[in-house]
């Protein structure tokens, strides 16, 4: 072989080995992409394919680009020569922000709403629901599709946003913060819209709902634009990243956002879950986690603020409202547990007593709400007492208040607790009566509580206003059934009112009476016991186990067994 041909052979071998390396890398990348693609949510894949071919997406994307381009020209023309000397980026940013906000706050969430309603209209949802996809996968697929659209719209406008940064007058963290909150708002709107789309299958209600959804989304879009314009009008062109409370406020907001998002997500998935499955336990766990997070934040603020007693009051009011609303909805659940749900019930007595609140049923929901509210009052009382004791020893500098003052706050919390027991208990009794005629629903339970509140607050108010002697009174004992008037009056005065002893006695007795009436039905639900899997299910589970872990060895009965 000649020298030149040897050189060519070496070069070829070298390039071949380089090619092999590239090929191997490429094959690895391709394999990884295929692996990843296989594991993507099927709905995300389908909706992306559909969206990229749909006219609506093309029009929205085109309009977004066109509006961005128009605003670039108009904005620059309006600023004029000042663009070279002044810091006018913020003004341009507001325009682009509003242009981006429309698809993100209106188009994407409404698309998420229509995504499920159109599946129901076209009856493709039936076909989807009988596949192996779980309801959570269906919801997360639709949500993933919404996120993907957000990302595409954001990427379309991002050169314009980069342009605003170069114009000066707005810093990078501010741009990021505004976009971040816009995306959070879009995701929240999409999630709520999706929950609403699961509420009804009838066409006329869907039309009514879609009008409300469109109206709500347009209001949200308008609010986002106003907030942006107002923020920059007041000279706030940069976010206070050096301020500790800015980060604390954001962390608190995000904690609430994530927990409520999870709650709405699981509620939407529960709406799509088949009737015999347990739709409630996950939601209840999120409620408890949310309560724990809220308690944690309030405790932290309370410690930071050296035991400010107002915080205990705010804590009890907010937590009371939360448990009242959630408890009201939970009382609409069906009291009959399916055999499927019973398969996972706790077996021990202690388990049944302590975990009963996590299992579906109106009675267990009532218990959970009452226990949640009780824990708030106990925490608030403990906090006030701790402040009193530790403060007296001087271990930590707490704001001191008198024992009488602490008692007043505790009394207000206790009265709120009694109202929660009374109203939820009355709702539960009413729904039990309604069950004789029709199956109660969660919506029905919510409306029952609204009706009870309207009667409880409205009737005494009408009577008081119609009596000449009481018309101008700030408060009268006629208002005992009215939680709003009574609590607002007590919180507003914050003093020990003369009516307080009577309120405490009457409301305690009423709460105890209504609670005791409800105890038998609650006890019946707590007494539900675990049932064994059907033979066929157990057989299949054993087969699957064997496939997964190999054949099971017979259990050893003595140390001498092989």
């Amino acid at each position, binding site marked *: 072989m000649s020298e030149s041909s040897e050189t060519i052979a070496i070069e070829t071998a070298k390039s071949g080995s380089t090619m092999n390396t590239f090929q191997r890398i490429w094959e690895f990348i391709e394999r990884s992409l295929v692996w990843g693609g*296989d594991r993507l949510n099927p709905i995300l894949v389908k909706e992306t394919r559909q969206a990229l071919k749909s006219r609506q997406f093309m029009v929205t994307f085109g309009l977004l680009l066109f509006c961005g381009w128009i605003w670039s020209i108009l904005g620059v023309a309006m600023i004029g020569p000042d663009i070279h000397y002044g810091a006018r980026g913020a003004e341009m940013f507001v325009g682009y922000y509003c242009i981006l906000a429309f698809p993100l706050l209106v188009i994407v969430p409404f698309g998420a709403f229509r995504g499920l309603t159109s599946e129901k209209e076209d009856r493709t949802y039936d076909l989807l629901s009988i596949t192996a996809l779980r309801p959570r996968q269906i919801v997360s697929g639709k949500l993933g599709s919404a996120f993907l659209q957000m990302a595409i719209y954001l990427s379309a406008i991002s050169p314009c946003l980069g342009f605003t940064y170069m114009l000066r007058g707005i810093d990078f963290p501010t741009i990021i913060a505004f976009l971040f909150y816009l995306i959070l708002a879009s995701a929240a709107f999409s999630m709520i819209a999706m929950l609403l789309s699961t509420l009804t299958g009838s066409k006329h209600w869907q039309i009514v709902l879609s009008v409300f959804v469109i109206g709500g989304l347009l209001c949200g879009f308008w609010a986002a634009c106003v907030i942006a314009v107002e923020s920059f009008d007041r000279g706030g062109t940069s976010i206070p990243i050096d301020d500790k409370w800015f980060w604390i406020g954001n962390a608190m907001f995000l904690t609430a956002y994530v927990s409520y998002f999870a709650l709405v997500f699981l509620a939407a998935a529960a709406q799509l879950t088949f009737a*015999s499955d347990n739709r409630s336990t996950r939601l209840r766990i999120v409620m408890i986690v949310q309560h724990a997070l809220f308690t944690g934040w309030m405790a932290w603020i309370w410690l930071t603020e050296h035991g400010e007693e107002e915080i205990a009051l705010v804590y009890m009011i907010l937590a009371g409202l939360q448990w009242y609303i959630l408890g009201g909805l939970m009382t609409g659940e069906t009291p009959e547990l399916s055999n499927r749900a019973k398969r996972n019930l706790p077996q021990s007595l202690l388990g049944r007593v302590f975990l009963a609140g996590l299992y579906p049923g109106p009675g267990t929901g009532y218990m959970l709400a009452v226990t949640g509210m009780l824990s708030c009052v106990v925490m608030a009382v403990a906090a006030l007492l701790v402040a009193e004791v530790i403060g007296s020893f001087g271990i930590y500098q707490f704001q001191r208040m008198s024992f009488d003052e602490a008692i007043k706050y505790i009394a207000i919390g206790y009265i709120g607790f009694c109202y929660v027991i009374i109203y939820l208990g009355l709702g539960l009794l009413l729904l039990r009566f309604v069950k004789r005629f029709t199956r109660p629903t969660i919506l029905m339970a919510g409306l029952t509580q609204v009706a009870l509140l309207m009667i409880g607050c409205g009737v005494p108010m009408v009577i008081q206003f119609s009596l000449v002697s009481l018309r101008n009174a700030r408060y009268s004992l006629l208002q005992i059934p009215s939680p709003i008037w009574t609590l607002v009056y007590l919180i507003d005065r914050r003093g020990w009112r003369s009516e307080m002893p009577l309120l405490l006695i009457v409301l305690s007795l009423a709460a105890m009476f209504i609670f005791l009436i409800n105890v038998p039905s609650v006890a019946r639900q707590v007494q539900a016991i675990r049932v064994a899997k059907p033979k066929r299910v157990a057989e299949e589970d054993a087969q699957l186990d064997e496939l997964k872990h190999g054949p099971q060895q017979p259990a050893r009965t003595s140390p001498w067994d092989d």
Partner: protein
Amino acid sequence: MIDSNTMIEFRGLFRHFGQTKAVDGVSFGVERGTVFGFIGPNGAGKTTSMRILATLDQPTAGDAFVDGFSVVEDPDRVRHRLGFMPDYTGTYPNVNVREYLDFFARAYHLRGAKRERAVEEVMDFTGLDVLADKPTDGLSKGMRQRLCLGRALIHDPTVLVLDEPAAGLDPRARIELREMIRDLAAKGKTVLISSHILTELSEVCDTVGIIEQGRLLAVGAVDAIQHPRHKARQAKKVMEIRLIGDTQAAAEWLAANAQIEKPQTDGQKISFLFDGDRQQQADLLRAMIMADFQVESFGSRRQSLEDVFMQVTEGLVQ
């Protein structure tokens, strides 16, 4: 008790919508690898029963089982075993045939080469391979039905529930669909099929069930239903007479005979149910000739599924 060979079982199934009893205590079973025809007039409760079996609806009382799994308590396990073809297609806009099947394959957790193979096999079986890139909303009725069948087959279910699969199809498409169902049965799949085209069902089905007003009126093998052996002597025959001349007068004359039921004239032809043996048939013919009717042809034929259906049902609607 469920027989291990019973793939589908309805056990005292009830489904009420207010006062309407859509399904009223239906109980029957379908053996592994057989084709069961579900016959009934509109509003009889066929679709409701099938939707319950497909886990799309909940019974008011009773239960249904697929391979021993309850559709109420274990719908997730039922869904893995069951392919449902409803009486509507359910296609998505902006999705072609391959993408549509690929989506449902993914939805049944089929991955990689297994998914690709499933899509190819289904397209090959249903003859959709030539239309793989065509948008689903642009397909003809027949092709949509094939697509719907393909979707139901994508995860290779052991039980197939087909609700009016031949509705709206032209004769060729019907014959092709019938062939496909035969192929599926030959592959060991259990098929529950409803149809209004009774002649087709009798050719495809091993057993049939007749339902009206939510109640199951008759169930059994096609032959047994057409010619119940235990009632062989008493069975009414379908007689057909072709006449020359006045058929109306002949029909009136026949109606006066106590052994004759439901005489119907169709041109020069009169058909009726005759409750009698061969000798009595001969006597009837002689009597007609003696009564000066010009009989061109006289004979009985086997009861078709349509005849049985007409006898058993009363055309009642809810």
